[in-house]
């Protein structure tokens, strides 16, 4: 091995050790402490055993999975729709792209606030009630606000899927568009029979879905913002994704067993990977990828 290769190997190994392996190993070590804190109790898997019988954790896992699936579908569909609208217009395409990209620069907390009951739903409710004579929608009902949270998350990340879709569509050879036109396809046919299958099957889009699945599974900011709107401050509220539950456990003094929180975070990581891997397996089946 050359001297330069030795140096680079050392640099990479050190950065991996400092950046990834040590935090993970230390968190795992903490999760094994039976006394709750370093220096207390023995080493064992008691925190993991406790966790899997803890209804709060099981509830949070269910919330996280639901939130991930809804957010992924919403952001993907909104992104795809935006991309298709952009492909339909011939003038001002760049401007529209810029406008559609704005949500990506919005802080997730702000997104949570923008889509909050007071910002949007009070007005929507008033409109529905006054103009249509329908009863008020109870936005504190989890069956209502969980989809709204996912919609906020979807809105926030839709530009990512829009840009991904546009990249895939723009990568289609120009002759493909011409061939479609010669075969009698109108714009809506091209969208339905060419763009949608192409985008859905592109590796770029599949990778984006996998990456965002991991991200949505760890979602914190929007559920946090909504937990205050709907007064869901107690543990096991319907806003409690695993990340939010961890946060609550850490800020409630009586619920502060560090080793227990470490065990949850390890499980969160493993589950996020598992969700991503499952989606990866589904999406890339038959691709030879």
């Amino acid at each position: 091995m050359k001297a330069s290769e030795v140096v680079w190997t050392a640099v990479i190994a050190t950065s991996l050790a400092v950046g990834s392996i040590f935090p993970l190993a230390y968190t795992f070590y903490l999760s094994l402490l039976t006394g709750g804190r370093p220096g207390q109790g023995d080493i064992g898997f008691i925190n993991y055993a406790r966790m899997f019988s803890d209804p709060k954790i099981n509830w949070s896992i269910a919330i996280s999975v639901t939130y991930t699936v809804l957010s992924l579908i919403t952001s993907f569909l909104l992104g795809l729709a935006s991309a298709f609208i952009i492909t339909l217009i011939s003038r001002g395409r760049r401007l529209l792209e810029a406008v559609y990209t704005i949500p990506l620069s919005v802080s997730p907390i702000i997104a949570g606030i923008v889509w909050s009951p007071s910002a949007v739903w009070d007005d929507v409710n008033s409109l529905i009630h006054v103009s249509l004579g329908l009863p008020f929608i109870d936005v504190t009902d989890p069956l209502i606000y969980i989809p709204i949270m996912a919609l906020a998350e979807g809105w926030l990340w839709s530009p990512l899927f829009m840009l991904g879709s546009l990249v895939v569509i723009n990568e289609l050879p120009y002759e493909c568009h011409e061939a479609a036109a010669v075969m009698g396809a109108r714009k809506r046919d091209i969208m339905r029979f060419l763009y949608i299958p192409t985008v859905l099957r592109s590796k770029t889009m599949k990778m984006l879905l996998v990456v965002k699945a991991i991200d949505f599974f760890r979602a914190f900011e929007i559920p946090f913002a909504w937990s205050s709107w709907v007064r869901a401050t107690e543990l096991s509220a319907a806003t409690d994704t695993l990340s939010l539950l961890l946060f609550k456990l850490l800020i409630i003094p009586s619920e502060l067993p560090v080793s227990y929180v470490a065990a949850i975070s390890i499980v969160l990581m493993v589950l996020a990977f598992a969700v991503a891997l499952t989606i990866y397996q589904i999406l890339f089946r038959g691709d030879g990828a």
Partner: protein
Amino acid sequence: MRIALERIEKSYGNRAVLRGIDAVIESGEFFCVLGPSGSGKTTLLRLIAGLERPDRGRIIFDDEDVTDLPARDRNVSMVFQNLALFPNMTAYENIAFPLRVRRVSEGEIRKRVKEMAELLRIEGILNRRVDTLSGGERQRVALARALIYEPRAFLLDEPLTALEPQLRRELREELKRIQRLTKITTIYVTHDQTEAFALADRIAVLGGGVFHDIGEPIRVYARPKTLWVAEFLSDSPLNFFTCNIEGNSILVNELGLRISAAMPIRGAERVKAVIRPEDIKLENVSNNDMFQGEIKRVEPVGDRVLYEVEVISRRTRLIVKELGTERIWPLGMKVGIRIPLDRVLLFNNQGNAL
């Protein structure tokens, strides 16, 4: 469907690509447009497909003027040079695309794709993604996709160019077979003479934005209408001679040959005689020789041999091409030379055939 092109002109900026194209392609005809790169072949095809509009002139399908009709409403099909298959889709989905656009029911699509796959012998690859197919398979998928919706005309833009010779030959035959079966008016553009001659009912030779000659392949080859066509259709250098006109006969100065002209020639005109290398025959020396010559250069080119032969007593050299390599005349050998006078091509000063 009959296609009429009337005085078609097309320019890009200051560059005139097509400068007055006139042609009529009869219904069910296999029509090849043959021309060198940059001659405007693809542009002409795109105009017929409706992907571009001519600056001047009209395109008529049967009795309908389609000059301003968008591509999607012309009901023609086109196979592009790079095939333009849809990536990330299977062969089946590619072939089914034009039917889905026409809102044909899924059951009917399955039936028609199966029939088309049988016609093109691609039943086994329908469920494979097109990016996993070989060049020949992709080609067949593109043909199937272009034919499945029974277009009024079938346009092909050098679709076999990227393939290896053996496969090209196979697909050429396949294409001819399918065209005969379907009887769809077909326009095929290519720079490859072999392809054009093998496929076409009629050939149009395109150069500099105009058709120099249109006709049956054998006639276009044997009696090209212009010197440019004669040169373009030859893959080896031609033998050029200057001529004097004496009444209704032409004297080829360098060879002392006298040829009768088919029609009276104005005395003031200069005439050029062209003899193709493959039209000259070499024989063992005998007393009946038209000329005698000496082999000065031998150049085997695959399945044929090119010779440079000096005509004894005439101080002129001829390029001769003989098919086959079983008999190769050695360098310095004395040979008899025979030139069939009916194969000598005569052109006036403007390069038009006499």
